């Protein structure tokens, strides 16, 4: 029996240390609050206030209610009116209290005073910081044109600075959430159905009768609504099929678990589709009506027998057949989940397309229990003056020639911008402005990121914590945490339309400022003040809301206003329209063929780890988001380091056991920080696994510093998806250094 307990410290202190703790007079407060907070308390309101807002511990944006007790944040609960949280936040959202009371928060603007990466700064006033930034940005514009500034952003909080960057005149606005995450999935689905699955995904999990998860580890990956619906469909007796090299939490709930060899998912998908087509298990009426190129598709996949796939994937032919038949039994309420973090092997768009096609065979796109057609409230944007038109196109993918399906005007490829910053081609990039993203963790190959940074005349990092990226910045701008600020409205495409408000529940303790204020003040300095014609954020929000027939006062009270339910399935009257060239679901893609790519997905073998090495795969912890929560004292109490999952027998052969500390060394000789071994029956023998976001080396993150190992550091190698520029990252091999 393998027992894991989340109360290490709890067990530890039942020994002698307890006397010490008591004697040293440690106060029994949850998270020690800074002086600034204690002072604020005096002026605060007595008793309990409840203020609605929405969460920012991840991008899901769940509606929350903050409880303020005697002027201090007590707890956060879900807003029952919100369709994303349904009144229940996920563990990170519940632990958001720890984000606000993090003693290591950035407190004042900083300007670097020694060489880059040394983490040595002087505190300056906001005005000094803005003057510094504006001088550099003006010089960059004069010397190289406005296109030489790039903006890297994550999250809704980045909207106002995005607006500023467009007003400044750069087209190079980019987010790792595309080329390092969901990009391949979005493009694969767009090539097939003419639309992508969006965020939050349009997956109708709660109504699905059969859910297929390929590498998606719902329950460990805590996208709140998805996990809630996953539990609901499971409770309703739904069938679950899990494909994963690791026996995930979801695998523990599955009827069929397929322990696939990493990198071979396309082989499995092709064999599944062959079984379903050969045995006539697909939705013939749906395919006849909406499909394009089905006969060519059928001919193309006819070669992929389960026996062939067995040799590639290690999944028994009978298990492939049985799970394929299981899916067909419940169609169209069979949902093959699109996944979200899909940048694995560099052929990820084709894998996503195979997933899309399997859904098409089930007839699940547009159907109840499959993928619904989301609705959105109509809330007009602020009537801003038109942006200047950049003279040069985007730097990452000139003329769409390199990556034909990373469509111009839609997403920009982070690694394309980084590459241009290093080479100066097709034109130089001289300034990076970043918001809410720690590029040292978000992008593969940290050396390349550093190399690019060394070519910059200006790196501005806006964040709440001193991340690794901040360590390289020329200017660090301390932002208020989400509980202390307004942000733009959340008007999301979802099962039902809604508009949600993020509003401050308390003041910032030090010099931190909200992003809208930062953008507006910097615009003034840059002579772009006319792009911010409102005096403050409430005026901005009011104008947008009034145009939509809503009121800010009402939204402040409720946190969310829901619109009228609309039809979301074909069977409810949604027109079955597909925005593809053929106006149909493209089983065979002429677009792909024209650009010299496989019109029907094909399987390519990926390199396997040499003997003695393991493939490094990574995933999510339910209590952490990216690399931004490990310093949160409440969440660190749940999990303060990651573990290296290794198959029990493989560990025995290496002479290591659970609880030992080891280091990883990758194919390029990079050695990790030490990480605790978890020898387990829950993973294959040919790969090792860890959760992402640990192993911080920013000294200013006092809780997270050197706790666990960083997968990002080990990902020196990546394979670029030729269709859209995504970086496949599961291709790194490691040995274990005892």
């Amino acid at each position: 029996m393998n027992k894991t307990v989340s109360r290490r410290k709890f067990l530890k202190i039942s020994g002698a240390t307890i006397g010490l703790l008591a004697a040293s007079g440690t106060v029994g407060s949850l998270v020690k609050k800074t002086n600034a907070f204690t002072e604020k308390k005096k002026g605060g309101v007595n008793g309990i206030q409840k203020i609605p807002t929405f969460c920012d511990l991840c991008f899901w944006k769940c509606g929350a209610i903050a409880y303020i007790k005697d002027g201090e944040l007590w707890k956060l609960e879900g807003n029952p009116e919100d369709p994303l949280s349904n009144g229940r936040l996920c563990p990170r959202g519940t632990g958001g209290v720890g984000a606000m009371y993090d003693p290591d928060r950035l407190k004042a603007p900083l300007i670097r005073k020694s060489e880059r990466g040394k983490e040595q700064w002087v505190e300056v006033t906001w005005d000094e910081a803005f003057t510094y930034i504006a001088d550099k940005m003006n010089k960059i514009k004069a010397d190289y044109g406005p296109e030489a500034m790039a903006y890297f952003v994550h999250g809704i909080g980045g909207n106002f600075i995005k607006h500023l960057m467009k007003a400044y005149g750069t087209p190079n606005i980019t987010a790792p959430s595309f080329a390092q995450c969901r990009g391949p999935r979005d493009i694969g689905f767009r090539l097939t159905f003419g639309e992508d699955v969006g965020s939050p995904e349009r997956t109708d999990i709660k109504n699905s009768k059969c859910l297929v998860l390929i590498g998606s580890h719902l329950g460990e990956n805590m996208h709140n609504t998805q996990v809630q619906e996953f539990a609901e469909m499971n409770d309703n007796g739904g069938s679950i099929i899990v494909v994963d090299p690791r026996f995930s939490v979801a695998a523990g709930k599955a009827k069929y678990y397929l322990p696939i060899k990493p990198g071979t998912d396309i082989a499995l998908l092709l064999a599944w589709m062959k079984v379903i087509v050969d045995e006539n298990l697909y939705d013939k009426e749906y395919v006849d009506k909406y499909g394009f190129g089905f006969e060519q598709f059928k001919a193309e996949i006819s070669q992929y027998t389960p026996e062939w796939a067995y040799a590639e994937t290690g999944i028994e032919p009978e298990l492939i057949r049985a799970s394929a038949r299981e899916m067909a039994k419940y169609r169209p309420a069979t949902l093959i989940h699109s996944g979200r973090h899909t940048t694995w092997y560099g052929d990820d768009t084709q894998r996503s397309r195979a997933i899309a096609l399997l859904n098409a065979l089930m007839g699940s796109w547009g159907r109840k229990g499959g993928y619904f057609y989301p609705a959105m409230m109509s809330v007009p944007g602020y009537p801003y003056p038109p942006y200047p038109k950049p003279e040069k196109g985007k730097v990452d993918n000139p003329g769409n020639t390199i990556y034909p399906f990373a469509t111009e005007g839609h997403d920009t490829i982070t690694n394309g911008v980084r590459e241009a910053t290093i080479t100066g081609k097709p034109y130089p990039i001289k300034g990076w402005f970043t918001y809410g993203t720690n590029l040292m963790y978000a992008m593969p190959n940290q050396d390349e990121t550093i190399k690019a940074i060394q070519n910059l005349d200006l790196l501005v990092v806006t964040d709440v914590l001193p991340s690794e990226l901040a360590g390289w910045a020329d200017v660090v701008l301390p932002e208020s945490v989400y509980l202390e600020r307004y942000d733009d409205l959340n008007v999301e495409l979802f099962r039902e339309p809604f508009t949600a408000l993020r509003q401050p529940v308390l003041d910032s303790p030090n010099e931190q400022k909200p992003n809208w204020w930062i953008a507006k003040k910097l615009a003034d300095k840059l002579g772009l003040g006319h792009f911010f014609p409102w005096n403050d954020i409430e005026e901005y929000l009011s104008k947008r809301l009034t145009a939509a027939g809503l009121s800010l006062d009402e939204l402040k009270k409720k946190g969310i206003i829901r619109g009228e339910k609309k039809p979301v399935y074909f069977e409810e009257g949604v027109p079955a329209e597909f925005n593809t060239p053929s106006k149909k679901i493209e089983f065979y893609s002429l677009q792909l063929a024209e650009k010299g790519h496989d019109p029907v997905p094909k399987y390519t073998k990926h390199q396997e780890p040499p003997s003695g090495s393991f493939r490094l795969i990574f995933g999510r912890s339910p209590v952490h988001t990216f690399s931004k929560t490990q310093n949160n004292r409440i969440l660190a109490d749940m999990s303060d380091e990651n573990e290296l999952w290794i198959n029990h027998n493989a560990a025995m052969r290496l002479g290591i056991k659970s609880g030992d500390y080891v280091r990883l060394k990758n194919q390029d000789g990079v050695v990790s920080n030490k990480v605790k071994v978890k020898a387990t029956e829950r993973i294959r023998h040919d790969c090792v696994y860890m959760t992402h976001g640990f192993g911080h080396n920013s000294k200013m993150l006092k809780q997270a510093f050197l706790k666990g190992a960083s997968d990002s550091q080990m990902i020196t190698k990546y394979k670029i998806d030729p269709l859209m520029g995504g970086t496949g990252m599961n291709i790194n091999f490691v040995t274990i250094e005892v």
Partner: protein
Amino acid sequence: MARFGMVIDTKKCVGCMDCVVACKTENNVPEGFNRDWITTDVKGTFPTVKMQIRTERCNHCDNPPCVDCCPCGASHVHDLGGVVLVHHDKCSGCKACIAACPYDARFIHPDGYADKCTFCIHRVEQGMDPACVSVCPTHCMYFGDLDDPNSSVSKLLNSRKYRALISEAGTKPQIYYLD
């Protein structure tokens, strides 16, 4: 008389620790301590693995050795629902209860008294569920009166297979796990 208890559906629990986090903020449990925790049992060899994940806490035993052994009268059974509680001001921090509890459910709070799950009695008395139950994103925890045949907990125990933990210790635990 009400008899409070919990029923936890392990089929739904994903081990996300939301219950642990919510308890921490609700009850201001100090850094380094938790009143509830997650246990994962794994059986078998890869890939034929069976796994159970469950959330655990004080079982509010009907026959509580922690109360019987308390020399100060601090550990006691509350008037309402048989909930086992500790009077902080009476507790000397002697740890007899910690030794007596077969579930490892107690710890000494940095302020010097024995602490553990209270079933969030302050919420229950106001008609709410305990914090862990009301936060759980999978709705896998149920709280209620085991003496009331119409309560959700009684109904679940009547219709599903269940077990309590370490029942052989004879403390009559009041938390039940559905398989």
